[in-house]
């Protein structure tokens, strides 16, 4: 198995300039990777390079800069198609992020389809961005939103999920990996069950893309969404994958330039995929940066990334047990996310104190209020690990947690 040596980690860390900064006089210990990841120098350079050498709008210019920008943009689309193992690069739509991708599917696919009596099924561990777009479209169409429950370990109860499925279920939307709990859903199996009743599946891959190889053809999902900023790419850009037949049949999400073939005041005809869904000037440097980030991740390799992150998760989980922290989310299949609470100390007090030791974690409800309600906590701390994190950093986290307890003794 390919693993990362200490020397590899040292080299990787040196490629992330921000990891050299200090906070309150302490070296930064960045453990909020599920929120957003840090960027390697090559991604930062790609953005700079675009603006310094070939900044131009894509498709429109008959000059060299525009040709370069267009080639880079479309090259990135091919790279994303390869990353997801999509059948056709026209199935890759660039959007602002996972949130916009899900809203696009809700409004352009679901809204024309749903009728009163139809059902949209989600799970109890979803992020707000995979709840609210479905609530909106259910309000608009009279369809019903159903929620498959989770157990105390934070896993979707698959038998209950199956009971929620019926011929009424038109759409099943679920996270590949839970952002608040780290649970990895058995989505291949869940997608097959959804297809058995004729439902279309929408996968929120925001947390999965940085940690695991994704094969949309093997999964056979209908839509898959992820965000660039969580996979070491720039903010403000994300990807919607959709099966060509579905995307072809959908009306555009937004109207504007670039997404049309011809416009008259009487009738407008739309572009073919993927441009039909990319109205207006796109986040060109974001797309270019995302491609570089995907190349960077591929060079390290998901096998090595998974192995290292899993080691970090096991180490942190073991320390959390030794320190009598309450761990929220103990699924058997987990990504490198550790949600926890410290005694009865509010997460924001813990977060403030950790910051004073240079440790950045998320403290809050993680945009998953129903999950917090299920576990009856107002908020949790969440440490989430990337391949550049180390056991030494986890030691710093736990030493700082000791200080929290001293202050709150």
């Amino acid at each position, binding site marked *: 198995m390919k693993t990362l040596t200490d020397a590899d980690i040292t080299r990787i860390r040196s490629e992330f300039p921000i990891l050299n900064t200090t906070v309150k006089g302490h070296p930064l210990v960045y453990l909020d990777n599920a929120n957003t990841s840090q960027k390697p120098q090559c991604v930062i350079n790609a953005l700079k390079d675009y603006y310094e050498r070939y900044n131009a709008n894509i498709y429109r210019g008959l000059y060299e800069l525009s040709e370069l920008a267009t080639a880079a943009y479309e090259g990135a689309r091919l790279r994303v198609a390869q990353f997801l193992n999509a059948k056709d690069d026209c199935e890759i739509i660039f959007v602002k992020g996972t949130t916009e991708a899900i809203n696009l599917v809700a409004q352009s696919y679901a809204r024309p389809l749903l009728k009163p009596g139809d059902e949209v099924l989600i799970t109890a561990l979803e992020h707000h961005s995979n709840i609210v777009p479905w609530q909106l479209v259910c309000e608009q169409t009279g369809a019903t939103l159903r929620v498959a429950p989770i157990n105390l370990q934070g896993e979707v109860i698959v038998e209950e999920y199956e009971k929620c499925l019926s011929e009424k279920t038109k759409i099943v939307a679920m996270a590949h990996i839970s952002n608040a709990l780290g649970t990895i859903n058995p989505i291949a199996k869940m997608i097959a069950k959804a297809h058995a009743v004729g439902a279309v599946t929408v996968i929120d891959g925001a947390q999965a893309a940085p940690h695991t190889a994704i094969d949309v053809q093997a999964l056979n999902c209908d839509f898959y969404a992820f965000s660039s900023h969580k996979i070491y790419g720039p903010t403000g850009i994300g990807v919607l994958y959709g099966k060509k037949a579905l995307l072809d049949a959908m009306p555009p999400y937004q109207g504007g330039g670039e997404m049309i073939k011809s416009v008259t005041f009487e009738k407008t005809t739309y572009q073919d995929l993927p441009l039909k869904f990319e109205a207006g000037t796109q986040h060109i440097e974001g797309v270019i940066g995302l491609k570089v980030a995907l190349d960077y991740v591929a060079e390290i390799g998901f096998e090595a990334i998974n192995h290292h992150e899993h080691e970090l998760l096991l180490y942190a989980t073991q320390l959390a047990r030794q320190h009598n922290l309450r761990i929220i989310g103990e699924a058997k299949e987990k990504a490198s996310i550790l949600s926890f609470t410290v005694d009865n*100390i509010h997460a*924001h007090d813990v977060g*403030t104190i950790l910051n004073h030791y240079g440790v950045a974690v998320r403290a809050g409800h993680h945009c998953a209020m129903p999950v917090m309600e299920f576990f009856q906590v107002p908020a949790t701390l969440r440490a989430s690990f990337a391949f550049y994190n180390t056991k030494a950093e986890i030691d710093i986290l736990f030493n700082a947690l000791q200080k929290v307890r001293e*202050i709150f003794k």
Partner: protein
Amino acid sequence: MNDDLIELYQEVIMEHNRNPRNYGVLANANREASGFNPLCGDKIHLKLHIAADNTITAVMFEGSGCAISIASASLLTEILHRKTVAEAYTLFEQFHELLTGHPSDIPLGKLAVFAGVNAFPARVKCATLAWHTLKAALLNNNVIVSTETGHE
């Protein structure tokens, strides 16, 4: 330990967080308001009784949140007892100044323990939630107050 941190989590604050004063439901209240910071999740429900001469004769609160927000609500209930409504408004203004960067020589008594919050801009909203809730109660505003709107 870091000095800022010692200033923030002073013993008075920690003690009020552990044992909040006037915690519960006031039976004969004639003013009340709720505060809720959705990003934080901090919740405060405040009930007051104001006598005919405009004196605050009783204050109680319920809620959940971080140490700063609970201690702030607890100290608020203590300091408001027997104050007039006009004095309560003045305290609101002075407390606000204390937290938002104008260290004054106004004698704020026990409330001075919150001076340390000044160094933690992200936590100012925690300390002011109870006070904005108080203002809404005095004004009889039937809205849920938040201090997360960026105006702090």
